């Protein structure tokens, strides 16, 4: 107890130096915590979005692009596939859910997604619950009706009954150039509840809306689009079980106009690329934390030299070696612990701020999870290093003869 009291007195005697040393630890730990928290959130978001006995059928091309486009609404699609594929899997006994996607238009950089009411089932399953109403108003039934994701509604201020006109493609064109769809505005008929998932930043309409647009777009060539055949961008299916998904996968793999993709696997691959970058950042952050702990040791080494006579005095009036050792170890522990706790708090704050920034700028939604073992072990490691940082200078200081220390100038 005397060690703790003395350590705290010494710590209080140099608030600025100890505060700065703790701050250095806090900065290192905060980067460690921020990167691990964000990557955990990204992993969580990906696994919630791409899970289950799912198979994505999309045009040939990059699997990653297809998954990012269809499940995350974050990329241009790979191309189109014939509507017959949707009709075929929709009718299949082994398919419990088939959600078609049709991309083409956007409104103020929010993607307009043509789909069916089955998309609502997909959201429910991804949220692993079914009790939510999910929707205020109703799901679009006719072309040019729209339901808005929560983030879209928030950003645009649109509500049920409002109308808006979309831009063709994924880029908002200047007023002068974007006159194609002026003739046919969308009407908002529903507002989706917040899902903390990509759903929030998309606008949903019926599958045939984009076919109408194209019909209108190619008006000059009358009904030429009918000859091309109606197309969709992708279908996401969920199978009854392993065998059905495997069968459909084998079946679709034989076709030339479509490729089957396992979204979970592709999402994991994307996260794998991210992870490599993240682990590099995390190692550098740990290095910074380690250097900060070295800073504690340097500061305590200096203290040991400065307190040469004080240490001898303590010994002369009855302090044991363990007491003196304890004083400096506790000082190291306290500085590192304080730094680490501040670091964890600051790191999580940083993660929340970055997630918020991502949501504001890209509409990409990350839900920061509860603090857990990672944060506790970061604090524990920092404290162990701090303890060591106090221990070593104290051991060296205690090697000096007390009588010699008493005669010392400092």
């Amino acid at each position, binding site marked *: *107890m*005397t060690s703790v*009291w*003395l350590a705290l*007195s*010494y710590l*209080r*005697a140099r608030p600025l130096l100890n505060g700065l040393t703790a701050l250095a630890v806090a900065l290192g730990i905060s980067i460690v915590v921020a990167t691990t928290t964000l990557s955990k959130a990204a992993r969580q978001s990906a696994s919630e979005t791409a899970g289950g006995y799912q198979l994505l059928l999309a045009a040939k091309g990059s699997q990653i692009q297809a998954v990012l486009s269809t499940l995350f609404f974050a990329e241009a699609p790979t191309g189109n596939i014939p509507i017959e594929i949707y009709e075929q899997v929709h009718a299949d006994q082994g398919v419990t859910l088939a959600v078609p996607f049709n991309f083409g238009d956007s409104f103020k950089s929010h993607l307009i997604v043509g789909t069916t009411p089955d998309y609502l089932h997909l959201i429910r399953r991804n949220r692993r619950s079914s009790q939510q109403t999910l929707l205020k108003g109703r799901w679009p039934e006719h072309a040019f009706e729209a339901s808005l994701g929560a983030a879209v509604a928030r950003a645009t201020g649109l509500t049920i009954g409002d109308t808006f006109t979309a831009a063709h493609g994924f880029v908002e064109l200047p007023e002068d150039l974007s006159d194609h769809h002026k003739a046919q505005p969308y009407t908002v008929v529903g507002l989706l509840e917040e899902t903390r998932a990509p759903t929030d930043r998309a606008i949903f309409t019926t599958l045939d809306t984009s076919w109408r647009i194209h019909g209108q777009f190619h008006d000059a060539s009358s009904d030429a689009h009918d000859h091309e055949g109606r197309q969709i961008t992708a279908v996401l299916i969920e199978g009854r079980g392993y065998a059905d998904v495997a069968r459909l996968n084998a079946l679709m793999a034989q076709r030339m106009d479509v490729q089957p993709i396992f979204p979970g696997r592709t999402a994991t691959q994307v996260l794998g690329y991210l992870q490599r970058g993240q682990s590099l950042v995390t190692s550098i952050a740990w290095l910074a934390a380690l250097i900060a702990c070295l800073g504690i040791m340097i500061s305590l080494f200096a203290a040991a030299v400065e307190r040469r*006579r*004080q240490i001898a*005095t*303590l*010994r*002369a*009036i*009855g*302090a*044991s*070696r363990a*007491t003196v050792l304890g004083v400096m170890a506790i000082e190291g522990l306290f500085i590192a612990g304080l730094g680490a706790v501040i670091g964890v708090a600051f790191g999580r704050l940083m993660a929340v701020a970055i997630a918020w920034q991502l949501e504001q700028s890209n509409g990409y939604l990350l839900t920061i999870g509860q603090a857990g073992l990672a944060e506790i072990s970061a604090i524990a490691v920092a404290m162990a290093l701090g303890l060591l940082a106090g221990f070593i200078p104290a051991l060296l200081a205690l090697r000096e003869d*007390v*009588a010699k220390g*008493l*005669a010392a100038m400092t």
Partner: protein
Amino acid sequence: MPDTAQTRVLDLSQNGGPAPIVEMSGLKISYRTGEMSFTVLDIDELALPAGLSIGLSGPSGCGKSTLLNLCAGLLRPTVGSIRVDGEELTGLGQGALDRFRAKKIGYVFQGFNLIPALSALGNVELPMRLSGSMPASLRRARAQELLDRVGLGTKARQKPNQLSFGQMQRVGIARAIAGHPRLLLADEPTASLEPGLGLSIVRLLIAVAKENSATLVVATHDPAVLTELDHTLTMSAINRAMEVSS
């Protein structure tokens, strides 16, 4: 100058006075530097009576501090035996020696040696904390009481750097006596102070030692200080190592 009656080796077995607090016999402290070995302290027999104030006099380098450190258990003799308050120090391990020091020794230093991070009160509390066993309220009360005794009752919350030299040494005295030591050692307690101030400090030291029934041993080269004490030992008379060099 102290009179000749006081300047002698104290041999209490002949006087039949109080029991000795410190007994040394056949004690030597030698250092080895390369091939050379030299002895700084060589005491045949020495006994210091309990309850008195005793001065150790002699020029610097004559072994006064070494003798005090020996009594405090901070140095171990190369050969020989030293008993303090009946306890043979050469037989004690490091931990037992630490406990012995915390319990039986008070130490006043030339440079005061206060812990700058602690207040005056904290410094006085320190030895009581180190020896443990005293409840916090009693400990604090005694520390405050001792500060009152040395005339610094109102300075309890001050840090050492807010005190004058004289005040610092008063805190040093209060700290040294706080743990109820049997033996109060003072190494040149007045050497850093003005002569007049030094004398008042040494009178306080003697008074405080008496009040707490501690034996006081003061190493000093100041004759004015020696006159205040019950007895004076000149190092040249007890340290045979001195005879060789002088």
